[in-house]
Structure formats: structure tokens, C-alpha cells
């Protein structure tokens, strides 16, 4: 990996800005192109209004909200155990990972902690959700750039991960498995061995994608040096997850925060990339799937014995108070700010989802790029529409 120096980054950004300015000064007649709400590149209903000069973007404004489902409000009329059903559907590809921070927040308010076995299984599932999510990203990335084949490989290998989830939780997409104080069920017999076998497959998929996509000259020509987000811009727009790490910020909540979860028992690397371009974001995600498979393999070897549920009352009432818990979800930092008044359900619940912030950098990063790059940058920023609109 030859790193792009900071100076080169600045030069690139400066050149784009200058070119955009020249085009504005010449006052050639622009064209407004609506990318979305119905467009294959937005995998959902994101609308981006792009002002074009020829094929060059002068201005891009993302307009979210076409799929707003009002989850923050809905949590107020649900009891705590019911909320996990809702939040499954925020980032629908990282299903289980959405449940964890909410449950952790509620547990924190109640002052209980899940037994070690539940913590380990939670962590394993969290990582499985990450793999299911990012595997699909890697395949879809190919489709956005124009290589059709990786999608099919991604769907094929993601299915194995989803089968693992299904065999325990009964749900492929919406496990709804996390409970306050523990988990719903224990692992079935033979699951751990199966899980290890699937991790081998996932790693194999990563190798395949690395050969088929990442090593491809055209792929690199399309993504290298495109959509560069420098460190300070990434921080000031509140990017998180792989988008931030690809800009060279060494920041991973799994390592940096102390959760009642099993990450601290696993040995893994936080992958960063100095370039901050679209290729870096994709590369970081690919490596993260590998690391995630490593984590699961390590944790599978050491799941402690014991109960999977702490002692919690039949009817869960959360004492009054406020709690903020966020975790390193597949898309970035996801968190819940829970305000409780001691009722059956939360009084107010603010959901911080990663994609909403990640997509906010679009107007900045898309100035001066070409239409094909718009798609490449959108794909590399990686958002799930449910995660933007909630």
C-alpha cells in the first residue's frame, strides 16, 4: 500500500475546488439531476439532488427522509423488551448489532449485568452481524462499480452466516434475541464447530474478493484518489466506523471503551488506512471482516459455562435516569440515549445511527467529481437507508 501524502491530498482537493470554481465562473448552463429516490445506487430511497456541469458535479445535496419510520417516537409507546424488535430494523443488515447498545443502556440503568456466557455469545453475534453486513457491502460494491459477479458470491457466503444466526435465534434478518439481563436461549449443540467452519468460509470469501476486486487494476483506477476525506474533515463531520478509520483516525469503540462484553478477551487489530479515499474505505472494511472472523474464532474457543440470564424481575421497570451507550456497529458508532422515568417503557430515546452522520459529508466530498464517481463515493461511504432515516 503506497500511502498518499497529506500534500497530495491537499493538492487533489485544491485542484477539484479550483476546477469547480472555474466552471461556475464560466456560467455554462447546468443540469439538475435527481439521483433517487428511486435509483439503484442508493439501495433504498435516498435522494441526492446533483447539479451538473457536463458530467461534473457542482453541488450535491442529499435529501433523506423518504423512509422515515419514526422509531424514536415508537419506542416511547413500547415496553423495554419490545423495543429490540423495532431497533432490529434500523440497520437491517446489521440486525443483532442494533439491539446490543439499547440492551446495554437499559441494563446500565437497572444496575444489572449479563452473566459471562451471555456476554460472550452477544459479542459473537455482534461480530456475525458485522460479517453479514459487510460481506454484502463488498459484493454490492462490485455491482456499483460495474462488476456483477461479486454480488452473487457475497450473497452465497453471507447465507452461511445468516444460517448460523437462524439456527440459534430463528430469524435470519431480525433475530430479536437480546434480552435485558442476558439472552433468550442458549446455543444449540454443535453450533460452535459449525461457526468455526463458517468463519473459514468467510475468510475465504475475503481472499476471493481481495483477488477479484481489490487487486483489479480497473477497480483501483476507479477508486484510488477518488472522494478523499481528510482527517480533520472526517472528524468535523462526525464520521465514524470504517469511514473514519480509512481517513487515518485510529478509533474503535470495541477497543477504546470498556463494555460488559467479551471484546477485551479477544486479540484483534484496529485497521486504519492513511489515504482517506474510496479505495481505503473499501479496503478497511474488507480487513475488518477478516479481523471479525478472527475475533469470533477466538471467542468460540473460550465461551464460559454458566447461565445465560441474570436475575431480572418478570415485569421490567427501569429506574429513573439517563443513559448513553454506543457501540462500534458495522456502519459506525451507533448509540441510544435513553431517558427513563421509571416506567415500563422509555420516556424518550434518542437513536444515534452511523449512516446519518456518514452521509452528511456528501455535499463536501462530491464537489467537482464526475457522475460515475458519485456512485463510487456513495458506495464506498456505505450507508443503509434504514440507518439514515430510522
Amino acid at each position, binding site marked *: 500500500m503506497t500511502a498518499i501524502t497529506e500534500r497530495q491530498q491537499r493538492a487533489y482537493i485544491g485542484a477539484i475546488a479550483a476546477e469547480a470554481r472555474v466552471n461556475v465562473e464560466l456560467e455554462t448552463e447546468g*443540469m439538475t*439531476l435527481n439521483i433517487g429516490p428511486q*435509483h*439503484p*445506487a442508493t439501495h433504498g430511497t435516498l435522494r441526492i439532488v446533483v447539479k451538473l456541469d457536463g*458530467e461534473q458535479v457542482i453541488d450535491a445535496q442529499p435529501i433523506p427522509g423518504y423512509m422515515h419510520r419514526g422509531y424514536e417516537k415508537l419506542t416511547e409507546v413500547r415496553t423495554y423488551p419490545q423495543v429490540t424488535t423495532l431497533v432490529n430494523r434500523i440497520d437491517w443488515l446489521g440486525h443483532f448489532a442494533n439491539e446490543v447498545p439499547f440492551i446495554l443502556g437499559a441494563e446500565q440503568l437497572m444496575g444489572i449485568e449479563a452473566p459471562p456466557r451471555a456476554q460472550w455469545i452477544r459479542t459473537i453475534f455482534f461480530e456475525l452481524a458485522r460479517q453479514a453486513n459487510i460481506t454484502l457491502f463488498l459484493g454490492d460494491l*462490485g*455491482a*456499483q*462499480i*460495474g*462488476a*456483477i*459477479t461479486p454480488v*452473487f*458470491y457475497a450473497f*452465497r457466503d453471507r447465507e452461511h452466516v445468516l444460517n448460523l444466526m437462524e439456527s440459534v435465534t430463528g430469524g435470519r434478518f431480525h433475530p430479536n434475541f437480546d434480552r435485558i439481563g442476558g439472552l433468550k436461549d442458549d446455543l444449540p449443540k454443535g453450533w460452535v464447530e459449525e461457526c468455526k467452519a463458517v468463519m473459514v468460509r468467510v475468510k475465504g470469501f475475503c481472499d476471493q474478493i481481495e483477488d*477479484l*476486486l481489490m487487486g*483489479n487494476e*480497473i*477497480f483501483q*483506477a*476507479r477508486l484510488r484518489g477518488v472522494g478523499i476525506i481528510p482527517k480533520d474533515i472526517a472528524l468535523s463531520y462526525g464520521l465514524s466506523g470504517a469511514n473514519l478509520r480509512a481517513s487515518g483516525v485510529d478509533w474503535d469503540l470495541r477497543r477504546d471503551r470498556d463494555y460488559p462484553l467479551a471484546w477485551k478477551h479477544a486479540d484483534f487489530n484496529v485497521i486504519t488506512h492513511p489515504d482517506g479515499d474510496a479505495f481505503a474505505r473499501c479496503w478497511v472494511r474488507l480487513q475488518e471482516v477478516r479481523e471479525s472472523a478472527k475475533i469470533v474464532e477466538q471467542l468460540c474457543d473460550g465461551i464460559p459455562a454458566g447461565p445465560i440470564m441474570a436475575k431480572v424481575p418478570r415485569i421490567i421497570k427501569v429506574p429513573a435516569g439517563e443513559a448513553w451507550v454506543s457501540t462500534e456497529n458495522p456502519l459506525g458508532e451507533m448509540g441510544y440515549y435513553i431517558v427513563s422515568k421509571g416506567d415500563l417503557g422509555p420516556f424518550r430515546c434518542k437513536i444515534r445511527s452511523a449512516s446519518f452522520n456518514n452521509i452528511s459529508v456528501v455535499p463536501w466530498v462530491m464537489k467537482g467529481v*464526475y*457522475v*460515475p*464517481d*458519485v*456512485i463510487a463515493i456513495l*458506495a464506498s461511504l456505505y450507508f443503509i437507508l434504514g440507518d439514515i432515516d430510522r
Partner: protein
Amino acid sequence: MILAALPYWESTIIRVVLVLAAVLLPAGTFVYVFLFKMMSFMQSRLGPMEAGPYGSLQLLAEVGKSLQKEDIFPERADRTLFALAPYIVVGSVLLVYVVIPFGPDAWFANLDTGIFYALAVSSLSVIGILVAGWASANKYSLMGGLRAAGQLIAYELPMVLAVVGVVIQAGSLNLIQIVNSQANGSIFGFGALGNPFILTQFVAFGLFLMAAQAELSQAPFDMPVAESELVSGYMTEYSGMRFLLFFIGEFASAGAFAALAATLFLGGWWLPGLDLNANYMNVIGPIVVLTKMMLVAFLIFWFRFTYPRFREDQLQTLAWKYLIPISLANIMVTAVLKVVF
């Protein structure tokens, strides 16, 4: 040589009926299923399974399905042009097949400037695509049409220049003559295998394949249809039978370019050890051409399903900065060697 004894019009009718019924129709279906199955296996899918044994009637099923669909015209579309565009594309593709020889007597037309005609006609499809893009009254379609025009003009040149090398070596523009000279040729005095031009013109073969890929607007050169950006470009607004016409045109032109490449570089209907002009070659010839054609089509689709797509500027850079100079150099070297040997 039976046909040569008959009057012109009788031989022509027999030719058209024979070639059309015996070669092109089954070949079209066969190649279609072959390509579908091949691309499915590349993508770890099964491909057509239900329509007929091994999915062999898939093309019929799709035609039947598309005929039932509503033929939607966008409100602000130019109706005449919108309706006409797919026919221009498919027509230009079918016209290419006219000059491809399938045997010593199994051909539609024996033009003295056969390859010139084929290249000229194949570029007609640009007009159809441009018309489709314009008539759709859709921004995505317009961009797709313009991209297609720019791309096809850029890649027409390396393709023609690549063919020039073959023409110099064969000394003729006539496709039958080109096949003859491959069969009777020799490489540095060794003539047992003849001289399929892929051996001496391998650079031209590579260039031809690359340019054909671009002419077909297939990945990695599928900017005009780029479904993730332009929502299938000029095809966005088409539905039903007209969409299917574009679709068939795409596959048929892949077949046409593959057949051209098979004729120019792989020796056409000729196989080493067989008598080039014997009567039985009229039966074996089409099978040989078809096999060679599918080999080339396999290459084309292999590239298509492996590579991501170029960006427009990278695509133009590749054509003007690399392919055209290389093909010019190839012509020069070929001409010099032709004179020397």
C-alpha cells in the same frame, strides 16, 4: 459447387433459406443458452433451468413473456423515433451476419469489400442507440446515448486499424479470401497448420477483442448502460418487446463480433487437415464457425463478468493513448514484415 451451376436467383434463395434456417436460428438459440449457462456458472448460479431440457428454450420463453407486456411510451417521448430505435440497433447487427462465410458455398453475400462492409454496418447501431437516448426524454437515457456515441467512435478506430493488419497479411478485404489465405498460408515456411492469423496477428486479435468489447458496450466498457449510475442508460424507458429487442441485439452483436473474429483470426470455417473447398465443408463449416465463435464469445463474456467498469475519461484515455498507437505500430510492423518475407 452445385449452387454455382444454378441461376443467380435460385442459388440466392436456396442460400438464404439454408443459412437462415439451418444455421442462424439454431445457432442463435444455442449460443444464447450457452452464454446464459456460462455466465451463470461463473456467478455460481444455475441459469435457465425450467424452459425446455437444460433451459434450452429460454429464448422462446422470454420472447413469449415480453410479447405480453405493455409497450410503454413515456409521455414526452418522440414516439416515432422511440419506436424505431430498437429496430435500427437489431437491424445493424443482423446486417453484419450477411457477409460472414459459413462454408465455401454457405454464405449470403460474397462482397469484395466484405470486412469493410461489416465494420461499416456494425457502427450503424450507434445511431440507433443515440436515437433511443434522445427520444426517451430522460436525462439518464440522454447521458447514456451520448456516452455510447463517444465511446463507439473512439473504439471504432482501433478496431478498424486492428483489422487492417489482417487485411495486409491476407491481401484482400473479402472474408472468403481471408479464410482461404489463412488455410493456404504458412508461417516461415511451415504450412501444415496453415496460418490462422491469430498466430501472427495476436496483437491485432487482442485489440480487436478489446474494441469489440467496447462496441458491445459490455463491462469493462459498459459506461453507456451502467445500470448502477444511469439506470441502464438508453434502455431505461424501454419495456416489453422493444426492451427485448435491445437485449437480443446485445447478444446478437456479441455473436456477430465473435463470428467476425473467428473468421479473421481463427480461420473461419476451415480446420487443418480438411479440404477447404470440398462440398462437405458446407455442412461441417457452419459447425466449425459456430464452435470458434463460441470460443471467442466465451472470452468476451469472461471479461465482462470479471472486470468492473471504467470511468468515461479512463475509457477514452485507453482508446486514444494506448490502443490506437499500438494498432498503428502493429500495421507498420505487419507491412514491413510482409514486404521482407
